């Protein structure tokens, strides 16, 4: 018998064949004594194992076994908390520039979208403090419809004082 036939017998035993293939193997194994003997052996091995998994008992007391598990759980949780704290501190230095960049982007988008319809006072120039949610950054905006100009000044509140309002902005973006 070749290996393919042997494995087909096994697939039949394990119910891994289609009904049609299973019928063919059943017919073949009933006719062929060699196939019948091999199928019998495979079936015996399967039946012997089913439900007869060796029963073993842990050779350690409940308390001793659990104490190592609990210690490891606590150690892993402490390590994770430490990692998160370190990650927070290392990322915090990027928060100020990121928050500033996001603010500029939001203001620039809103100006681009709504700038044309605020033409009530075309010649007016506005310098205003911009409200934001960051504790670390402040921002001022300067807008001139007449010059088609919009400037946002973002600063770190811990390091830099806000700019004094001036009639003309030094920095012009067009």
């Amino acid at each position, binding site marked *: 018998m070749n290996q393919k036939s042997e494995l087909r017998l096994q697939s039949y035993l394990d119910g891994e064949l289609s009904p049609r293939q299973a019928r063919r193997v059943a017919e073949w194994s009933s006719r062929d004594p060699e196939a019948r003997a091999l199928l019998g052996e495979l079936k015996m091995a399967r039946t012997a194992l089913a439900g007869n998994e060796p*029963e073993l008992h842990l050779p350690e007391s409940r308390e001793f076994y*659990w104490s190592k598990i609990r210690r490891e759980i606590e150690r892993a949780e402490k390590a994770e908390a430490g990692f998160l704290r370190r990650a927070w501190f290392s990322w915090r230095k990027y928060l100020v520039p990121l928050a500033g960049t996001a603010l500029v982007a939001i203001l620039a988008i809103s100006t681009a979208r709504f700038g044309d319809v605020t033409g009530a006072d075309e010649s007016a120039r506005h310098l205003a403090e911009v409200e934001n949610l960051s504790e670390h950054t402040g921002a001022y905006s300067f807008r001139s419809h007449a010059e088609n100009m919009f400037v946002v000044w973002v600063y770190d509140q811990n390091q830099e004082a806000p700019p004094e309002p001036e009639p003309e902005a030094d920095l012009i973006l067009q």
Partner: protein
Amino acid sequence: MATQPDNTKVSDEKLVRGAQKGDMVAFEELVARHRDKLYARAFSMMRNEDEAIDLSQEAWVKGWQRLKQFQGESSFVTWMTRIVINLCLDQLRKQKRHRAESIELLEEESGGVERQMLPVVAANPTERLERAELRARIDRALGQLSYEHRTVLILHEFEELEYKEIAKKMQCSIGTVMSRLFYARRKMANLLAGFKREELS
């Protein structure tokens, strides 16, 4: 002083829900209930007491860490058993990298010599055996199989996994699983027949 609740009569499901909320006392009760089962599974795969203890404990730690992922599709102990099996397979793979491929495995892959040497066992060597004796013989026979044959038998016969699930876990083809299972069963039958002969002589 606060006393610990008596969890011995609480169902697994309720203990799992408690543990998912961070109740370590509930988790300890789950460990106490199923520690033998997990240890037995690890031992049947590793055949080494110390490794089985370490890996089963590692499985419990991972179980606690992943407890929120447990949705109850299977029983808790089945879910935990899958974790310990995966850890054992990882460990066995690491060990395999450190040792040469056995001649036996090469023969198995080429499919030839081994099957010609095994006679077909006609009489059932497990007939009229007490269950405890049968289990002891199965344990002895498992210890004499290569880890590939032992693992595939455990996953198919005890864990009742299908060929494709075993192939995924063992990172091999379905054909290899079928071949390994075939030779594992044949060897098991021959080992049990050998034990019977020993008994009779």
